């Protein structure tokens, strides 16, 4: 099958920052992304779990973004501006996608 090179960006960020992040992505012309729920985790700020939580604080979401290699920098700059002062991690992997016209 015809595959096309792309980047897979995975941004794990505080749930309260989800809207700010997606706004920033839209602002950078990145309109394709998928948000996965996160049930728990651990990091320098300790271990946490969503179980029984009511407030939006103290939870994370994972935003996955498949993007053409040449658009990566715009995305990273937009994302970094949001995550900079917040907890969370950003990783970028090489990948290949079907139907490149969608990206």
């Amino acid at each position, binding site marked *: 099958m015809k595959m096309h090179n792309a980047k897979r960006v995975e941004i794990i960020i505080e749930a309260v920052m989800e809207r700010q992040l997606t706004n920033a992505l839209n602002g950078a012309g990145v309109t394709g992304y998928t948000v996965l729920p996160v049930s728990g985790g651990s990091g320098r700020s300790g*271990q946490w779990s969503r179980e*029984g939580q009511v407030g939006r604080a103290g939870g994370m979401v994972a935003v996955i973004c498949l993007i053409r290699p040449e658009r990566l920098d715009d995305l990273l700059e937009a994302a970094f501006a949001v995550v900079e002062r917040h907890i969370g991690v950003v990783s970028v992997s090489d990948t290949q996608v079907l139907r490149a016209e969608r990206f």
Partner: protein
Amino acid sequence: MDGILALAAANLVSPIILSFVLGLAAALARSDLSFPEAIAKGLSLYLLFAIGFKGGAGVAAHGVDARLVAALLAGVVLSLLLPFIAFVLLRSLSKVSAIDAAAVAGHYGSISIVTFVAASSLLTGLGIAAESYMVAVAAAMEAPAILSALWLATKRGGKAEQVGGELWREILLNGSIVLLLGAFAIGWVTGEKGLAEIGSFIVEPFKGVLCLFLLDMGLVAGRGLRGSRGVLSPGAVAFGLLMPLVGAVLGLAGGLALGLSLGGVVLLMVLAASASYIAVPAAMRVALPEANPALSLTLALGVTFPFNLTFGIPLYMMLAAAVTGS
């Protein structure tokens, strides 16, 4: 007075308190008992809708008291004022950073709706009436404290996210405020008739649902305490026990100045004495990311909430009863 004392003691062995204790104990013992996040949120949606609606229906029934507006203003002022006191008190009792102190202060200026609900149902149990619109006062007190916290953080702790319109919208249109006030409005408009229609959903089962919610809160508080060993200095714990008393006294003063009923005074004391663990933590993560969320939350949920629930509320009652001489 003695009656109150007796019933206050009884309060300690109410299903509500014991459910919280059960959750706390289970979490500290590292049991895997837990509520799904969706269920916890569902329970809180129910509680907010029910308490708001009943408050509104109450206003419809007893007519709106001229003091309503004054009470709302008093609530806003308290919410704006308390953080400054909290900031100074916490800084003097422990050496947390100014940013952390500002964040904590924001939590204590705002309110805990569950503490409010627990106090209301205890009052009902004691047959002590209170102004129905106090639930609106509760809603009014949720957000202003955030302003003071951010002001403190900027002035005393260096930069904080400057509060743009977007952030303002998020703070003022916070889900719990909207639901509380919205249900209050619906209850007010539909009045007794509306209450008759849905009373068997929002009135009868209410206390039982509250038990389950407090069980969950006990679990969350216990997990938090376990996870944050070392986060709390003795000074911070002292703050978590002293600050509610300070708030209660200011609430008492405000309540008397407003000329509220005994029940109303108690509820204003409880609001001032309680600390937010839902709305404010989220706002602080957005606007004050450098602040350590574990500190605020452990203090509010692990220290002050249990204190108010068990000893605080009855204490505030006796204080109010003594002062008002009823």
